[in-house]
């Protein structure tokens, strides 16, 4: 009797997923590449798509507005990921210990992760709104500070960084906590017997063993923060002026407000390219190895 080919069965079983992935993931991706090679502005005199090859990408290299939003996004990403990583690590270490009300604290603490960014932005906007927001009110009442995210660039930045840290530090904490819990106790006990102090244990044992988790967490957060859009849109709308207009918001406006589908698509692909490059650089920096190395 002829045996069935297990490979064929495997392909049959995963084919529905591949089909969905193809329709929902790959088709839009290739369509964006296609549109990115066209000039397609709904309001231009000549209607429809006009093939322009790589002209959109050439324009992007000299587009100061795009480059400005990109550099702002990189600064934002660096700031929030660094703060979230440090805070998340400290909190994960705290949660490794037992204390009264730990379960309750952990439940409350992770709630922001499940809130949609648009709702986070709306909530923070309400809290910081001039006239009726509690944060400007109390800052003014108790400290005499004028806190106005619509008028001060610095305060707008503080607000969006705080919002992002509040929203995503719990996620970083959870992933690092999972990593810490998975570290075997034996090497740490052995190091302790050998007389290693606390700093040496973290430097030579815990952090190296935690590195894969840190790397994954940083990758996820870097990718997320580079495409921040909804919460910033709600809180500052990119202002004051264009000081908090990040690249995601700029692409959104180019495509949906300006209806420049071709140029907007090329921007999206450029940001994707930057994201890959940054992740690759981070990988090398954190592992100290070349890209062929495996963790």
């Amino acid at each position, binding site marked *: 009797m002829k045996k069935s080919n297990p490979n064929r069965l495997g392909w049959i079983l995963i084919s529905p997923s591949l089909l969905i992935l193809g329709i929902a993931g790959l088709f839009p991706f290739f369509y964006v590449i296609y549109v990115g090679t066209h000039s397609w*502005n*709904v*309001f231009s005199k000549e209607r429809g798509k006009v093939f322009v090859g790589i002209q959109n990408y050439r324009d992007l290299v000299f587009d100061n507005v795009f480059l400005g939003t990109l550099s702002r996004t990189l600064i934002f990403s660096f700031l929030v990921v660094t703060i979230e990583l440090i805070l998340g690590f400290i909190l994960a270490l705290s949660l490794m210990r037992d204390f009264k009300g730990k379960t309750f604290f952990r439940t409350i603490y992770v709630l922001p992760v499940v809130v949609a960014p648009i709702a986070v932005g709306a909530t923070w906007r309400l809290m910081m*709104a001039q006239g009726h927001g509690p944060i400007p009110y109390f800052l003014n009442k108790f400290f005499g500070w004028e806190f106005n995210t619509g*008028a001060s660039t610095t305060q707008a930045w503080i607000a969006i960084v705080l919002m992002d840290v509040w929203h995503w530090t719990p996620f970083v904490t959870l992933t690092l906590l999972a990593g810490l819990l998975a570290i075997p106790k034996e090497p740490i006990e052995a190091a302790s017997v050998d007389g290693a102090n606390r700093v040496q244990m973290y430097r030579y044992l815990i952090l190296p063993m935690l590195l894969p988790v840190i790397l994954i967490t940083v990758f996820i957060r870097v990718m997320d923060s580079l495409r921040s859009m909804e919460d910033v849109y709600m809180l500052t709308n*990119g202002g*004051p*002026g*264009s000081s908090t*207009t990040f690249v995601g918001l700029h692409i959104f406006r180019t495509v949906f407000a300006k209806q420049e589908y071709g140029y907007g698509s090329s921007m999206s692909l450029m940001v994707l390219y930057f994201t890959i490059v940054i992740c690759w650089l981070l990988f090398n920096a954190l592992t100290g190895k070349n890209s062929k190395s495996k963790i």
Partner: protein
Amino acid sequence: MLNIRNRRSLALASVISSLALVLSACSSSSDSGSASGDDAWFATAADKLECKGKTIKGVTENTPPGQYVKSDIIPAFEKATGMKVDLETTSWDEMYSKAINDMEAKTGIYDFVYIEQDIIYQYLKNNYLANISKTIADNADLKAPSFDFTKFTSFIDNFKDANGDVFGVPMEAFVKVYLYRTDLFNDPAIKDSFKAKYKRDLVPATNYKEYKEIADFFTEYGKGKDLWGTTVQAVTGHPASFYELFESILPTNGVYNWGINNGKATSANGGSMDSKAAKDAFAFWVGLLKDAPPESKQSTWTEVGTTFAAGRAAQGWVYGENVAWIATDEAKSKVVGKVGVALPPLGNPKVLDDSKSGKGYLGYYDGGAFGVPATSKNINCSILFQEYQGQESVQAKWAAAGSRIVMESTYDDPIVQEMDTKTNGYYTFMKEEGPLFRGAPPYPFHTAVREVVAPFIYDAIAGKISTSDALDKAAKAADAEMKKLGY
């Protein structure tokens, strides 16, 4: 476990609450019929056109007139015809992107969309819209006896093409007025104090200097009272600030049509966006921020309305669609019965003559219509709804709720006249002074130019660049964009 007595009580409570629900449903359904017009004809037409049971989908802005359509007109229409109308009321920018993406991609999701007067030229150029007047003329079953294009004010002309065919049925029209607080302006102590300081009477400003003095005065007077001298619609990151500047402020200093002339914005090319008059007006407007409440740099037209209603500003440019609720709705407004309307102050007195002669205008005449996308799968059914909302009989309550007027006859309705008294003559003002205001220029590149100019305006508001630099850069960017688009 519940004992029998408790169970009986619970059952009784359930029956009572169910009855209450049914009664409230009945009462709301009878209320919803209040906007009815020639219902019998519409019921027959819906049958004949096979619209009964169908659902049409629309999108509009979440404004007082839009909310009235949803709460009153649609229920009455549904009751009369057996059709369903699914209307999304959303934010202004969301509304546009939804409508344009649908019409551009020809997906046919929407059967009617809100068309603002300033965007119709883009829609007509792109053949987005069905020809409403021709469709009605070609189908006798679709011609409602109670609907007549000629009953509308001349505002309907905005929605006609070069052949005079109509592509949108007006649903709102209003002017952006100079609103001021009558209680403050008429307060004897305040008047005396103002006169002592400025050697003139405290009356609504007629020019920039007077406006600024009043703003300064009330900002000083309002310290510790949550009161400032003026509203400013100066949000950054949202085109509302662009619109206040280009449609309400620059015209008062003689810069019309956004300072664009024959597709050029720079003075070097024949435009006036970077002219001295434009820069003076812009500097005046940005200067008002010192006298505006702290929320002004986050204020779109909606927040300007709420700021005024909260009693936080003594005067300001406010969209007329908000006047009715600001002046009469005690649940939402703290300045009920304390609102006056006047012509906006001018930077250049010759603007008034220009406005009277038709050469220019001194403010913005805003409004919109419902149009039917050419890609709709229910064009006839959608037009049936447009005729319903365009009946003379549904206009008066709508005008009272949303301070909008699209038909001359609406001004004479007792409901509107009563509201006119309550709003200190807003409706009379719109009727008599409306011709001095004008809608946006007929630019098919409206959105594209706005999007390249607006960031410079935002940066000037934020203080990152001077108002003069901002207009210089904006004019150059506008010229480049129009060239790029082929105009």
